[in-house]
C-alpha cells in the first residue's frame, strides 16, 4: 500500500488542490466564508466587535497583500509604495464612477490599471537597485503620489456611491463583504495559477539568483517591471474595492503606515507563499481587534486608566509580533506546513 503522495501524471503533480482531502477542506472553507454573514451578528453580540466589517477589510487587504507578495515574496523586490498605489486605485475608481459615470467594474479595473502604470514607472529603478536601496526609491513613490493626490483633490476626500451591477446594488455590508470576498478569492487563485506558469517560474528565478536567471535567458528588466505592474494592479484593485466599500476616499488612509503594514502582513504570513498573505492579514487584523476585547473590558473596570490601556494594547501587539517572528521567522504558512506534516506523519513522526 503506498504511503504518501504519488502522482503518475504531470497534471496531477501540478494540480492546485492535489488531494481529495484538500479539495474537501477547501470546499468547507469556502462554505464557511460564504455562510459567515449569517452568523456574524451572533459573533458580534458575543464579542462586542463588528465582524462583518472586519472580514470585509481582511478580504480587501488580502487582495492587496497578494499583490505585494508577488513582488516581494516571489520576485524578491521590495516596495514601500503599495499604500500609495492603493490610493491611486481608490481615487481613480472613485472619480471615474462619480464624475464620468463609469460602471463600477470598469472603474475599479481602470483604477487597477492606473496603479499598474504608476507601479511600473516607479519599478524602473528596480533594474539597478535592490534591497534597502529599492525600498527607499519606492518610499519616494509613496510620498510623491500622496503629495500629488493631495494637490489634485484639495478637499482631501472623494465621496463614492455604492457599486451597482446590472441593477443590483452592493449597498449593504453583507453584499459588500461578498463582493470583496469574490475579488480576494479571484486574486488568490490568479496568483496561485501565475506561479505555475513560465512567467511565475521566471519571477522565482529572478528572486533566487538573478545572475543565473539572466544567463539562462530570463529578461530581468521585463520580469521585474512586469512584477511591479501585476503587483500594483492587484493593490490598485484593492483600492477600488475600498472606495466602493467605504463610500469615501481620503488620502490620509493610504499613508506610509499602510505600506509598512502591507510588508508586515506578508512577512508574518510567510514570504513567497500564496497562503502567506491570507494568514498574515487575518492574523494581524484579528490580533488587533481581539486585543480590543480585554482592553475594552478592563477599561470598564478601571475607567481611570483608559488611556494607558490603549497604549498597553499597542505594546502587546508589538510584542506578540516580535515574539512570533523570533520563533517562526518563515511566517505563519511555515507553521501551517509543520502542523500539516505532523498530522500526516502521526504517529510515526520520525
Amino acid at each position, binding site marked *: 500500500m503506498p504511503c504518501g503522495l504519488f502522482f503518475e501524471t504531470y497534471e496531477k503533480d501540478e494540480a492546485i488542490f492535489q488531494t481529495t482531502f484538500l479539495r474537501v477542506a477547501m470546499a468547507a472553507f469556502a462554505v464557511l466564508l460564504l455562510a459567515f454573514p449569517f452568523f456574524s451578528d451572533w459573533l*458580534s*453580540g*458575543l*464579542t*462586542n*466587535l*463588528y465582524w*462583518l*466589517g*472586519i472580514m470585509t*477589510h481582511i478580504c480587501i487587504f488580502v487582495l492587496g497583500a497578494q499583490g505585494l507578495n508577488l513582488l516581494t515574496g516571489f520576485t524578491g523586490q521590495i516596495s514601500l509604495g503599495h499604500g500609495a498605489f492603493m490610493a491611486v486605485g481608490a481615487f481613480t475608481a472613485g472619480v471615474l464612477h462619480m464624475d464620468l459615470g463609469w460602471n463600477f467594474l470598469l472603474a475599479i479595473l481602470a483604477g487597477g490599471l492606473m496603479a499598474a502604470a504608476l507601479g511600473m514607472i516607479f519599478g524602473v529603478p528596480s533594474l539597478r537597485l535592490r534591497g534597502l536601496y529599492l525600498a527607499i526609491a519606492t518610499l519616494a513613490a509613496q510620498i510623491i503620489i500622496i*503629495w500629488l493626490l*493631495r494637490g489634485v483633490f*484639495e*478637499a*482631501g*476626500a472623494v*465621496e*463614492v456611491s455604492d457599486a451597482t451591477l446590472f441593477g443590483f446594488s452592493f449597498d449593504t*455590508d453583507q453584499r459588500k463583504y461578498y463582493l470583496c470576498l469574490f475579488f480576494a478569492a479571484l486574486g488568490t487563485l490568479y496568483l496561485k495559477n501565475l506561479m505555475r506558469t513560465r512567467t511565475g517560474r521566471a519571477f522565482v528565478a529572478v528572486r533566487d539568483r538573478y545572475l543565473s536567471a539572466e544567463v539562462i535567458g530570463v529578461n530581468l528588466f521585463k520580469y521585474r517591471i512586469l512584477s511591479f505592474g501585476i503587483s500594483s494592479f492587484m493593490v490598485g484593485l484593492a483600492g477600488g474595492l475600498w472606495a466602493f466599500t*467605504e*463610500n*469615501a476616499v*481620503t488620502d*490620509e*488612509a493610504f499613508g506610509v*503606515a499602510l505600506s509598512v503594514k502591507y510588508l508586515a502582513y506578508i512577512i508574518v504570513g510567510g514570504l513567497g507563499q500564496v497562503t502567506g498573505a491570507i494568514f498574515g492579514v487575518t492574523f494581524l487584523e484579528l490580533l*488587533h*481587534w481581539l486585543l*480590543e*476585547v*480585554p482592553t*475594552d*473590558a*478592563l477599561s*470598564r473596570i478601571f*475607567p481611570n486608566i*483608559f*488611556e494607558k490601556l*490603549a*497604549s498597553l*494594547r*499597542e505594546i502587546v501587539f508589538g510584542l506578540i509580533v516580535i515574539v512570533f517572528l523570533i520563533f517562526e521567522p518563515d511566517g505563519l504558512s511555515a507553521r501551517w506546513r509543520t502542523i500539516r506534516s505532523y498530522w500526516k506523519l502521526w504517529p510515526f513522526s520520525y
Partner: protein
Amino acid sequence: MKKGLLFLALAALVCLTMQPLAATAAEEIPVGGIFDITGATSKVGADYAKGVRAACDYVNSLGGVNGRMINLESADYAYAIPKALNLYKKYVNVNKVFVIQGWGTGDTNALTPKLKKDEVIFMSASYDANLTNPANNPYNFFIGTDYSTSIRLAMQFAKDNGAKKVLFCYPDHPYGRAPIAAGKEYAQMLGLEIGPDEMVDLTATDATQQLLRMKKFAPDYVWLGGTTPSCAVVIKGAASILPEAKFLINCWGFDSNLPLLAQGAAEGRAFGILPVVPYGADVPGMKAMMAWTKGEPHTLHFVKGWVSVLVMAEGLKRAGDKLSGPGLKAALETLTDFETGGLCAPITYTSTDHRPNTTCGIGAIKDGKVVVLVGKVSMPREAKYIGN
C-alpha cells in the same frame, strides 16, 4: 496543568467580554467614542478623550438625560482611518448608537457619506468649516469656532496689531490644510502681504529649514496650523532664526503644554485661538468641572471634550423620546444662544447653518501659563461663509 491555566484564561476572557453586554441592557443611551490616544494627534487627543469621558460620567452623576444614563462605548483608533471606519460600523450595528463623539478631520471626512446614509450624529473635534454646511453634511456638529472663522479672526488680530506681512505654516494634513484658502482670501482682503506657505509635519522635531526660508520673507505674523508639539518646534526654533515674528496658532496647537515644550520661546510671541476658556478660568461652568476633576490640571482640549458632551446632552434632553439621529439633529437645531456656563461662546445651530458660534478668545503665554489676552473676538454670521 497547562490546559487548566488555558481554560482559566479563556473563562476569564469570556467573563470580561460578557460583562459589558449585561451592563448595556438597562434603559441607557448608547454613545460611541472614536478617540486618538496613541496616534499622530494623541498629544492633544488623549486629554480630549478624558474630557469626553469625564463629562459623560458627570452627566450621569446628575441623573443622566431625562433619567437615562449615557453609556459611552469608546476606543482608541490611533488616527488610523480603517480602524475608525470599523469602529463606526461596530457602534452603529452592534451597539446601536445614533450619536458619536468623534475626532479628526480625516476620519470625519471619511465617515461623512455613511453618516448621511445611516442618519448618525457625529460630534467631532474637527472644526473644519466644510462641516458647517448642513446641505452637504447634515449630521455633523461641533462646538468650537470653525477653523476658517478662526483664521479670519487671527488675520484681523494681526492687522489690528500692525502686521503688514503674514505667512502660513501648517502640516500637509487635512486639519492643517482646511482653513488656509479662507485665511489667504481674508488676509488679501485686509491688504496683508502673503508669503510662501511652509509645511511642518505633525511629528516634526526640527523646523530649521522652514524657518530659514521664512526669514527671507520676514513675516510679522506666522499662522501655525499644527498640533502643540509641532507648533512648539517652530516657535522654539524661531527664537534664534526669526526672533521678530509672532505666531498665531490654531486651536489644537495652543495649550498649557506649549510653554513647556517651547521652553520659554513662546512667552509673549505665541497667540492662540481659544474656542473654549482655559481650565481653571473664572466662569460659572468651570466650577462643576473643577469639582469633578478635583482640581487636577488639564489642557484646553479637556474643556473642549467636556463642552461637546454638555451640548450633546442638551440635544438629547430636548429630543425627549425621539432618540434617533434625525430626532437629535432636530433637537440640536433648536439650540439658540445656548449657554455652557461661559465655557465657550453661546451656541446656536439652525437647519441651514451648523456653525456653533463665530466668537472666540485669543490667548497668550505669560509666565509659562496660558492666559486670555482678548476675551472675545467676533465675526458677523455671514451666510456666504457657511461651509467655507
